[in-house]
């Protein structure tokens, strides 16, 4: 493919002389014995996850009635969580795909982890569309398969069905993309264990690495398909959140029936995704001492994206109000006024301050470069984006057309349990990944290292080996 090297704008790898060092640094956590810290956090998130599963079990056993929903507010935490997690997922794909297309070399050291984040987030998201069904055991009916119930098919007009296709495509494609990226690194790990003579472990990674040898002919194919995959993933990621937003945009409920939703949701998704990337990266680079690969410059560029998308989201909020006013429809106007000043006004203001005001702090370099502050802000962003979905869903529903049906909504412990449980699941998966897979894409980072020093311990006359 490209014979042109993209000019190096910035030094994305610091205090590193040899390729071997990169391998060593990244592989260290995998080779080392699991430390107490890791065991602790993994066990904890595991427990939280199990609690979530218990709540899910209770819901399925007893019925959706265990939630706080009612005849007027038919969705709340369930779909809020769904949209929230899908949104989180988007940053990963964006970093790995879009930035690859744009030749943003700084993505190389963070794409692996953020892709992992994508996968796990989408896994969490996937739970909810299933779980919110009154009869989850009939989930199969979402698929258009020929059946014996006479001629009976699915509704291709329903955004919910579009979701099914979008989410499954998104999950599987991201999974492939992620795994493809890990194959060469698994090979590296394989060989390191082989060198150390730990053949058993080496074999496991050998299986995972599909027998990768690093032959240039395959490298060139490999790069081509990575590029095409990013080419496919980019519109895919946009389409996914567009479709998610259509769950609302195609309805007739004031506050949902809004054409601005697709771009607004995508912006929001990237925003929340990068928020989560910040949270994860700050922890990972600290715990795994990867400051040389996930540098301050990385953190800064992420912060800048958060700032940009945050402002976009803020713009969207204001546009909504303008449109409502400009539409001249009392229903529209009312729902937005009610959103900000009605019974659920508090949630609106949480959303607004977290998503629009806090990110503005990133204008200051001092704050961008302070990991503590960045971490705190990233948490706020996550909270804010969860509330954005809550606000859109609940405030629009609880007072729609006929005042006789207006109702309030208050969640039950079951709903909270499931929400918290989904975080448990997410972090549990992420910790497992961080222990057993290279959190930084070694081979891509190596391409960033210019003029390496001569490594030590180069042996001559070594015989070919089969691993």
């Amino acid at each position: 493919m490209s014979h042109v090297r993209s000019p190096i704008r910035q030094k994305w790898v610091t205090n590193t002389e040899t390729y071997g060092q990169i391998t060593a640094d990244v592989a260290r956590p995998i080779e080392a014995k699991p430390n107490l810290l890791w065991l602790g956090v993994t066990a904890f998130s595991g427990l939280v996850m199990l609690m979530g599963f218990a709540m899910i079990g209770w819901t399925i056993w007893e019925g959706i009635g265990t939630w706080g929903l009612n005849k007027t507010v038919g969705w709340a935490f369930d779909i809020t969580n769904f949209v929230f997690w899908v949104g989180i997922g988007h940053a990963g794909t964006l970093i790995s795909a879009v930035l690859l297309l744009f030749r943003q070399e700084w993505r190389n050291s963070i794409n692996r982890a953020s892709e992992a984040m994508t996968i796990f987030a989408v896994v969490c998201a996937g739970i909810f569309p299933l779980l919110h069904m009154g009869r989850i055991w009939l989930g199969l009916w979402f698929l258009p398969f020929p059946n014996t119930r006479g001629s009976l098919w699915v509704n291709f007009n329903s955004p919910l069905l579009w979701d099914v296709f979008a989410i499954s495509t998104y999950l599987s494609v991201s999974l492939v993309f992620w795994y493809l990226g890990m194959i060469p690194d698994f090979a590296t790990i394989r060989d390191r264990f082989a060198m150390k003579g730990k053949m058993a472990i080496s074999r496991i990674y050998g299986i995972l690495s599909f027998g990768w040898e690093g032959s240039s002919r395959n490298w060139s194919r490999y790069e081509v398909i990575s590029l095409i995959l990013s080419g496919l993933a980019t519109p895919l990621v946009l389409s996914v959140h567009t479709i998610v937003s259509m769950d609302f945009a195609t309805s007739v409920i004031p506050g949902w029936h809004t054409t601005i939703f697709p771009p607004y949701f995508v912006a929001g998704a990237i925003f929340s995704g990068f928020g989560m990337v910040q949270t994860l990266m700050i922890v990972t680079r600290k715990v795994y001492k990867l400051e040389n690969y996930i540098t301050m410059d990385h953190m800064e560029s992420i912060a800048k994206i958060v700032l940009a998308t945050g402002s976009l989201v803020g713009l969207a909020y204001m546009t909504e109000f303008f449109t409502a006013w400009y539409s001249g429809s009392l229903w529209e106007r009312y729902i937005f006024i009610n959103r900000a000043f009605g019974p659920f006004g508090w949630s609106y203001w949480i959303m607004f301050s977290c998503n629009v005001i806090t990110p503005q702090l990133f204008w200051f370099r001092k704050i961008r470069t302070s990991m503590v502050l960045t971490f705190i802000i990233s948490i706020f962003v996550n909270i804010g984006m969860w509330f954005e979905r809550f606000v859109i869903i609940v405030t629009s529903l609880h007072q729609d057309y006929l005042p006789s049906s207006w109702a309030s909504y208050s969640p039950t412990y079951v709903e909270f349990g499931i929400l918290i449980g989904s975080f448990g699941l997410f972090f549990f998966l992420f910790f497992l990944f961080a222990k057993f897979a290279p959190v930084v894409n070694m081979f891509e980072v190596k391409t960033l290292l210019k003029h390496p020093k001569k490594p030590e311990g180069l042996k001559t006359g070594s015989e070919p080996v089969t691993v």
Partner: protein
Amino acid sequence: MKRNLLIGKYWDPEAVLEGLDKLTSQGVRIFDVFSPFPIHGIDPYLGSKRTRLTVAAFIYGCLGFLTAVTMMSLIYGVVWPMNIGGKPALAFPSFVPITFELTVLFAAHGMVITFFIVGSYWPGKRARLLDIRQTDDVFIIAIDKSKVSDEAAVKAVFEQTGAYDISETEYVK
């Protein structure tokens, strides 16, 4: 098949490119280069054709597109026309999202699977390495002995361009 290979091991990708440049200018055909990461600008020296995976991806995409359109049109147009919310049975605008998703799905997966088949990769396949460090920090130029007339010249080039180890070995693949 069994091959005898002349191999030069490097630790610097720049040197590898230099070596390849020299060798090819002497008309030596490169068997393969093994590297921990893709060395940009290496393809011309390998003399390998541009991969046709892109074309494959396109075809798979079209396949997905057709599948989606025919499925939905058949179901709603022929098998089961329905009055859903007063919309016409064939409401094409609402077919767009699913059509797009299936296109992407087919293209992506079709292409990747093809890649694994072409490169003959599968879970558990054994890797044959000329050097255990070739996935870490060692770069290897391999040349098919039977295809070169003047081995000395080749070794000389390895020498000049800073290969730290030059050897001959049997390679089964």
